[in-house]
C-alpha cells in the first residue's frame, strides 16, 4: 500500500516542481536573455515484485533550459555588427550634413573668395574691392578652421568613446570572469546552473555590443573570451584589462592597448565590430581622410594663390608677397625617440599631395619612409627624399630606431590664414608690359606676355625686339633682341604670321602678324600700372584650374571629392545599419523563438500540470479509500 502512496506523493512533488518552473518562466517573461526552463520527468526505478516489475512513481531528472549554442553565437555576432553599423551610421551622418550644408560647407565661401578676386580684376586700382578680397580671404580662413575644428571635435569624440568603451569592456570582462568561477563551482553538483548561464550569455552579449568577440567553452563550463585577432580577454576566472592610452606619435589621439604592459602596443587596428570597432573605423576611414583632404585643399589654395601672387606686382610697384600664410608640414618625433634628430619637411608640389601621413624611421644606416595609409615605403641613405610632392630632409641625424611622424596636411585646414593686411599689397598687375613702337608700319604684334619667374625682375633695362629681315643671317628674318640674352628670335612673316611663341629670360610671349623691317617692340618694367589687372585675372583663373590630386581637380572638385567620399561612406553605413538591424532582428527572433518564454505555452503547461496534480491527488484519495476498505474489512 505504501508503494501506491509513494507513487502518488512522488507525482505531487514532481508536479509541484513543474508548476514552480512554469511560474519561474512566467515570472521571467520580460527578462532579457532568459531561457525557458522545463522539467524532465522520468519514471522511478521499478521494483521486482516476483511477477514482474512494478513502477514506483515519477521523479525529476533535470531542469533544463532551452538553449541553442548556434543561435546564441549568431545573435552575439549580429549584435556586434549591428551595434557597430548603427554607431558608424550615426557618426557618419553627423559629419555628412556638416560638410555639404551650404551654411557650413566650403563651397560657397570658396566661390565668394574668387568672386572677390574677379571684382579686383574688374577694378584693379580700387582699394575697396581689394579690402573686400582680404575680407573674403578671412571668411575662407574661418570656414577652413571651423571645418577643421568640427572634424577634430569628432576625433576628440572618438577618443572619449574609446576611453568609455575600454572601461566598460574591462568591467564586463571582470564580470564574465567571476561568473565563470561561480558556474564552474555550480557545475560540480552535476547540474546546469541555468540562470547563471543565462546571465553570462547576456553579459557576453553586452560585451559584443562594444567589440566583436569570439568565445570557447572549456570542459569545466568556463567561457574563454577573445577579441581582435585572438587576443584573450577572459581566460577561466581571470580577465585581462584593456587600456586607452595616448598615441606616442600623435598626442591628440587615443589608442587601445593591453594594460599592464610598459609600452602598450596598439591593438586597435585588430579590433572590429561593436561600438569600439565602429569608433576606430570612423576615425580611420571617415574623419582622418576627410580632414587630410580638407588640408590638401587648404594647402592647395595657399600655395597656388601665393605662387601666382608672387608673379604679380602690387599697387606699390613691388612684387607680390604671400597672400595666405604659408603652411609648413607638421613633423613630430616619437615620444620613444632616444636621439636628437631633426627632420624637416616642405610642400614641393601641391598637385602630388595625397593627404597621407608618413613615418620616417632610421635603422642606423638607412631611412625608411612609409605611407601610413597605403604602407608603401621607400628606403635610402638620404638625407633628402621626395614623396608625393612632399620634400623630406634630415637636418640632424637621429639615433638608430628613432621614428618621426610627418603630417603634411592633416592640420593644414586649421592653420589656414590670411597673411596680407594691406589691400595695396594684392598683386593685381603683371610686373612687365610690352608696347609696340608708334612708328611700326607692319601688322606685327607682341601679345600674351607672361611672367614665369620673378628671379630676373625688375628688368635692369628695357628689352627691345626689332624686326630685321636678316636677323639670323642673310635672308633669314627674325627679331634682333637688345637688353637681354637669348636673341635673335627667328620669325618669318611669310610663314609665321599665325604666331610664334618665344621665351626670353623669365618671360614668354607670342609674336604674330607681318612686321616690316625696323618695326620694334619694347618690354619694360610695368611702372605705375595701377590699371593693370593681368595678374588678378590669372589669380581668378586659379579657381577652375585642376591644380590638385595629380592635376585632375580644382579646389572645388577636391572638396566635392571629400563630400562625395563621406556621403558614400554615410550611405554605405546607413544601408549596412539597416541590413545589420534586420539580421539582428532575425537572430533575436530565432533565439527568442527557441529560448524565450511564450505565455500561452506556459498557460497550457500550467493546465497540464494542474490536471496531473489533481489526478495525483485524486489517486492518493483512491489509495486511501482502498486502504480504508481493507482496514474496515479487518476490523472485527
Amino acid at each position, binding site marked *: 500500500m505504501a508503494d501506491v502512496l509513494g507513487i502518488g506523493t512522488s507525482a505531487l512533488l514532481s508536479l509541484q516542481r513543474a508548476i514552480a518552473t512554469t511560474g519561474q518562466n512566467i515570472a521571467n517573461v520580460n527578462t532579457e536573455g532568459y531561457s525557458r526552463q522545463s522539467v524532465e520527468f522520468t519514471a522511478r526505478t521499478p521494483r521486482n515484485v516476483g511477477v514482474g516489475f512494478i513502477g514506483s512513481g515519477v521523479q525529476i531528472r533535470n531542469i533544463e533550459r532551452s538553449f541553442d549554442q548556434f543561435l546564441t553565437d549568431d545573435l552575439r555576432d549580429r549584435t556586434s555588427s549591428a551595434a557597430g553599423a548603427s554607431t558608424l551610421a550615426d557618426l557618419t551622418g553627423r559629419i555628412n550634413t556638416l560638410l555639404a550644408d551650404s551654411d557650413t560647407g566650403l563651397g560657397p565661401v570658396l*566661390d565668394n573668395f574668387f*568672386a572677390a578676386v574677379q571684382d579686383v580684376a574688374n577694378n584693379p586700382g580700387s582699394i575697396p574691392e581689394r579690402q573686400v578680397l582680404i575680407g573674403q580671404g578671412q571668411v575662407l580662413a574661418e570656414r577652413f578652421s571651423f571645418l577643421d575644428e568640427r572634424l577634430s571635435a569628432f576625433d576628440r569624440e572618438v577618443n572619449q568613446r574609446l576611453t568609455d568603451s575600454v572601461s566598460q569592456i574591462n568591467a564586463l570582462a571582470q564580470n564574465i570572469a567571476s561568473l565563470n568561477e561561480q558556474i564552474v563551482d555550480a557545475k560540480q553538483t552535476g547540474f546546469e546552473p541555468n540562470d547563471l548561464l543565462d546571465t553570462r550569455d547576456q553579459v557576453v552579449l553586452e560585451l559584443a555590443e562594444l567589440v566583436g568577440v569570439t568565445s570557447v567553452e572549456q570542459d569545466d563550463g568556463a567561457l574563454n573570451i577573445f577579441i581582435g585577432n585572438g587576443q584573450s580577454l577572459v581566460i577561466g576566472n581571470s580577465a585581462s584589462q584593456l587600456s586607452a592610452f595616448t598615441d606616442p606619435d600623435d598626442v591628440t589621439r587615443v589608442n587601445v592597448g593591453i594594460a599592464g604592459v610598459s609600452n602598450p602596443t596598439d591593438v586597435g587596428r585588430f579590433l572590429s565590430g561593436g561600438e569600439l570597432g565602429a569608433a576606430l573605423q570612423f576615425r580611420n576611414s571617415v574623419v582622418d581622410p576627410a580632414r587630410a583632404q580638407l588640408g590638401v585643399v587648404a594647402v592647395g589654395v595657399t600655395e597656388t594663390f601665393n605662387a601666382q601672387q608672387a608673379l604679380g606686382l602690387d599697387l606699390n610697384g613691388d612684387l607680390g608677397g604671400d597672400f595666405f600664410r604659408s603652411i609648413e608640414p607638421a613633423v613630430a618625433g616619437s615620444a620613444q625617440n632616444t636621439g636628437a634628430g631633426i627632420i624637416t619637411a616642405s610642400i614641393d608640389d601641391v598637385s602630388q599631395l595625397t593627404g597621407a601621413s608618413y613615418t620616417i624611421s632610421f635603422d642606423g644606416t638607412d631611412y625608411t619612409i612609409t605611407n601610413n595609409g597605403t604602407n608603401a615605403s621607400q628606403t635610402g641613405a638620404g638625407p633628402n627624399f621626395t614623396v608625393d610632392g612632399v620634400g623630406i630632409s634630415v637636418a640632424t641625424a637621429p639615433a638608430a630606431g628613432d621614428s618621426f611622424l610627418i603630417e603634411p596636411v592633416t592640420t593644414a585646414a586649421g592653420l589656414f590664414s590670411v597673411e596680407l593686411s594691406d589691400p595695396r599689397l594684392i598683386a593685381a598687375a603683371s610686373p612687365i608690359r610690352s608696347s609696340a613702337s608708334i612708328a611700326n*608700319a607692319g601688322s606685327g604684334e607682341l601679345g600674351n606676355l607672361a611672367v614665369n619667374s620673378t628671379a630676373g625682375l625688375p628688368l635692369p633695362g628695357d628689352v627691345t625686339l626689332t624686326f630685321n629681315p636678316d636677323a639670323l643671317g642673310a635672308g633669314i628674318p627674325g627679331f634682333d633682341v637688345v637688353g637681354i640674352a637669348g636673341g635673335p628670335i627667328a620669325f618669318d612673316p611669310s610663314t609665321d604670321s599665325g604666331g610664334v611663341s618665344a621665351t626670353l629670360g623669365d618671360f614668354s610671349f607670342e609674336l604674330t602678324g607681318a612686321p616690316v623691317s625696323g618695326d620694334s617692340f619694347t618690354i619694360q618694367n610695368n611702372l605705375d600700372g595701377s590699371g593693370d589687372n593681368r595678374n588678378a585675372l590669372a589669380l581668378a583663373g586659379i579657381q577652375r584650374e585642376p591644380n590638385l590630386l595629380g592635376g585632375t581637380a580644382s579646389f572645388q572638385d577636391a572638396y566635392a571629392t571629400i563630400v562625395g567620399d563621406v556621403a558614400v561612406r554615410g550611405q554605405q553605413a546607413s544601408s549596412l545599419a539597416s541590413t545589420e538591424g534586420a539580421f539582428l532582428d532575425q537572430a533575436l527572433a530565432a533565439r527568442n523563438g527557441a529560448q524565450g518564454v511564450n505565455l500561452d505555452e506556459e498557460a497550457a503547461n500550467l493546465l497540464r500540470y494542474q490536471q496531473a496534480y489533481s489526478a495525483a491527488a485524486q489517486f492518493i484519495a483512491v489509495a486511501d479509500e482502498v486502504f480504508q476498505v481493507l482496514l474496515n474489512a479487518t476490523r472485527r
Partner: protein
Amino acid sequence: MVERISTLQIFQSGVSTILARQTELARTQQELATGRSILSPSDDPTGAIQILDIEEDLRQVDQFQRNSSLAESQLSLEDTTLSNVVSVLQRVRELTVQANNATSGPEQRSAIAQEIDSRLDELLDLANTRDANDEFIFAGFQATSQPFTRSGATVNYAGDDGQRFVQIAAGSQVAVRDSGSRVFLAVPAGNGSFDFSVSGNTGSVVVDSATATTSFIRDDYTINFIQALPTDPITYEVVDSSATVVSTGTFQSGEAITFAGATVVLEGEPADGDSVEIQSTANQSIFETVSEIVETLRSSTGEEANNAEVNNALGSGLLNLDQAIGNVVEVQAEIGARLNRIDSQQEINSEFNLQLQTTLSNVQDLDYTEAISRLNLQLVALQAAQQTFVQTQSLSLFNFI
C-alpha cells in the same frame, strides 16, 4: 515541430515595426516640410556632388553676368567718347575743307586755325576721359595718371599699350579698354602707305590724289620736274632714296604717275626744279595731324606759291584726318563687336543659368505628388501596425483560465 515565438518577441517586434513606420513617416514629413528629396548627402551621394557642382556654376555664372554688365558699361563709355572724338574730327575736317577752298584768304584761314586749335583742346579732353572710378580710360595700365598733356603744338602720351580684359565666361575674356596709343597715336599717316609734301616750289603743282597698291615698295621717293627750256615739254623722273631712277615720263596735269606700286595724280604747272617728296609713312598721332593743319593755316600768306604749298599741306592733312577718323571708327567697330560678344555671352549665361536651375531642381527638389501619396500610405501602415499591436497584445490563454 511547431515553430515557437516568445511572448517578448511578439511585443518587441510589434514595437519595432511601429518605430520603423514612424521613422519613415518622419522622413517623408521632413521631405515635405523642406521641399527637398536629398536631406543629407548620404541619401544620394551622386546627387549631392551634382548639387555642389551646380551651385558653384550658378555662383560663377552670376559673377560672369556681373562682369559682363561692368564690361558693357565700360565699353559704352568708351564708345560714347569715341563718337565725340569722331564728330570733333569731322568738324575739323569740314573746317579744313573750307580753309582749303581757293576763296579762303589768310585772315579767314587764321580764324579757322583758331577754331581748330580749340577743337584740339576738346580732343585732348576727350582723350583724357575718366570713368566712374576716376581712372583714365585711354592711359593703358597707368590708369591713375593723366595720359595726354599738351605743351604748345605737341601732345605727349604718358600711358602705355596696356589693355584691360574682363572675364565674361569660363575661358572667355573681353577687352574693355583700348590704350591711348591704339586710338590716338598709332594712326597711319597719308594714304596708309605714303605721305607727300611739297616745299620750296616755284610752280603751282598740287597733289590731287595719292594711292598705293599692296605691292608698294616701302621707300622715300622724290618726283623731280625737268624743263630745260620753257618750250620743252615738262618731264619728270622719280628717284628712290638711293637716287636710282624708278620711273620717268612726260608730265601732264591730271594724269597719273605710277611707280613702285604708288599712283600719284598731280595738277597744275610745275616749274623746272620743282619736286614732290613721297615719304613712305610711319604713323602719326591725331593730335599731330590737327596741329599740323593749324600750323599750315597759320603759315598762309596768300601768295600763289604759298597757296600751292598750303593746298598740298592741307591735302595731306585731309588724308591724315581721314586716316584718323578711320582709325577711331575702326576702334568703335571693335567695341561694337565686343559689345555683341558680351550680349550673346550674357544670353548664353542666362540660358545656362536657367538650365542649371532646372537641373538643380530636378536633382534636389521633391516630387510632391509622389511624396504626399507616400505619406498617406505610410500613415495607413502606421495605423495598421498600431491597431494590430494592441489587438494581438490583448490575446492570452490566461484570459480563459
